[in-house]
């Protein structure tokens, strides 16, 4: 079966032209399956010339057959992925929560946010919060936090909050690994791994000696933490982006909550990419925290 995947923008009519050639002169939509309402087929000489899609968000599988008697009944598969934007992608890396602001007061010149109810998880120092309401609209770093319902943000106090959406949003990035690296183009790139992770360790250059009927360590060598991250269900372009990490001269694990970075080492052979027939990609990346733990000798 021929499989082709395209990405379209939702609610934007997109016409896909077909030029099938001599090998498939009689290709048309599978008559066994009803066309969805957002798909219009235009026949050319009785067979498919183009289709116009105007699809809701989602991924759709459209089958075609080569003539009415062609076995098997589904000769070609067109996967249509309808997305919000062709230039954006969605990752589910953080938990966004909104809290109602009770008051905003002056705290040493900065705005202090007092909540009506408590945070589930009080934002940490330097973490970002977002305020949608007009006079404090924007992302702000947390300068000070007092659990369970008070934070000071790094913007001047300009009075009470105005507007109708008097909330503050917090982001919990704890369940993700954000890797930042220098790309070949001389810029910085990042990717967030928010799925499965494995933690491991490695010991190098262990030296032992025979202590008379027992073995003892002279030196435990350098002990590194190893982390393996997995990301599945990603597009080819995301794969290309992550793959560029393999050629990076320097990479870091970045903790947005604390605004700290830790250098990592990625061996090129510790990268695996799996691709299914329907272009369902998964990458597995194993990296080492470059800073090693020192262990005493004996």
């Amino acid at each position: 079966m021929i499989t082709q995947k395209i990405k379209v923008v939702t609610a934007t009519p997109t016409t896909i032209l077909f030029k099938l050639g001599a090998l498939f002169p009689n290709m048309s939509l599978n008559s066994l399956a009803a066309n969805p309402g957002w798909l219009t087929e235009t026949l050319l000489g009785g067979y498919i010339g183009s289709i116009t899609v105007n699809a809701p968000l989602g991924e759709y599988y459209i089958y075609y057959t080569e003539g009415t008697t062609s076995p098997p009944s589904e000769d070609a598969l067109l996967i249509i992925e309808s997305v919000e934007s062709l230039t954006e992608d969605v990752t589910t890396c953080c938990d966004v929560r909104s809290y109602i602001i009770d008051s905003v007061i002056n705290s040493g010149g900065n705005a202090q946010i007092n909540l009506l109810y408590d945070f589930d998880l009080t934002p940490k120092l330097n973490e970002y919060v977002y305020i949608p309401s007009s006079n404090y609209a924007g992302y702000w770093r947390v300068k000070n936090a007092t659990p369970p319902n008070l934070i000071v943000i790094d913007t001047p106090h300009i009075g009470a909050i105005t507007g109708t959406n008097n909330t503050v949003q917090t982001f919990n990035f704890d369940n993700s690994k954000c890797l930042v690296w220098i790309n070949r183009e001389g810029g910085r790139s990042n990717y967030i791994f928010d799925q499965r992770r494995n933690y491991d360790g490695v010991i190098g250059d262990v030296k032992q000696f025979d202590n008379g009927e027992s073995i003892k360590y002279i030196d435990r060598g350098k002990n590194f933490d190893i982390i393996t991250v997995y990301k599945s269900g990603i597009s080819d372009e995301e794969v290309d982006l992550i793959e560029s990490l393999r050629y990076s001269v320097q990479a870091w694990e970045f903790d947005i909550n604390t605004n700290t970075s830790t250098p990592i080492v990625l061996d090129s052979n510790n990268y695996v990419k799996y691709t299914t027939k329907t272009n369902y990609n998964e990458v597995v990346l194993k990296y080492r925290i470059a800073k090693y733990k020192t262990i005493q000798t004996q």
Partner: protein
Amino acid sequence: MATNITQNTVPELWQSANDDVIYTFDFKQYEISLFTNSGGYLKLNVSPNFDVLPVVGEYIFIDNLAYFGTHKITTVNAINEIIVDTPYVAPTVAVSYVRHLRVPTFSLYKGFKGSEAYHSDLPYTLVSTIKPSIFYDSNALPYISLNIRGLVSRIFETGFTIENGAYDFSMFNAIRLEWDSTSTTLPSTAYSYVLNCAISTAELLLKQSTGLYLSPIGTPYIYSKGLTILTYMDNSAALPKIKIYINGSPL
């Protein structure tokens, strides 16, 4: 201080640190006002004077057909009069020129001078001194060429910079050459920028002309949820800076 060379080609405004970074210089031409016989050897008088007093043992280049080529200086009588180790013959062309093949010592500097912006971020620092060789072009005329690729690829101190709107000073630097108390100049600035990238300069310039995100994929991802870190240049003459998005919105 006067100099006997003139700047010819200079690098692009933005250069890849891992591609050729080439400067070329021509030797100034001094018109020969007099060819004379000095004990069987050629004596030259030039007008105007040489910019730099020649030294015995240095070489000159004469483009007169009777003497076309390189000759060694054996005597320096004055700043406009020298004798070379070449037997005198009657000159065949009336007007001809001599080039003083003195090669100055070049100093490669990185960073910005005290009077320039960003001096505190990238201070003016000597990287290396260079004494290049003389090359000859297809017309057998001498010139100086320096390819400083090997030096500029090591001028960076890679660090972690994640500050929205901040220039990524660990990924680029300004470079220029100094010699004889003068320095290279580009048409628009006194220096070139070198970006610590692994793509070619041609690819870098193409990227700058088609989109100024320094990203491995054509259109960078801006994650609709989560943190996005990108490097961006406002235009081809601007410096690269960090741009951060949270949940698809710029900070």
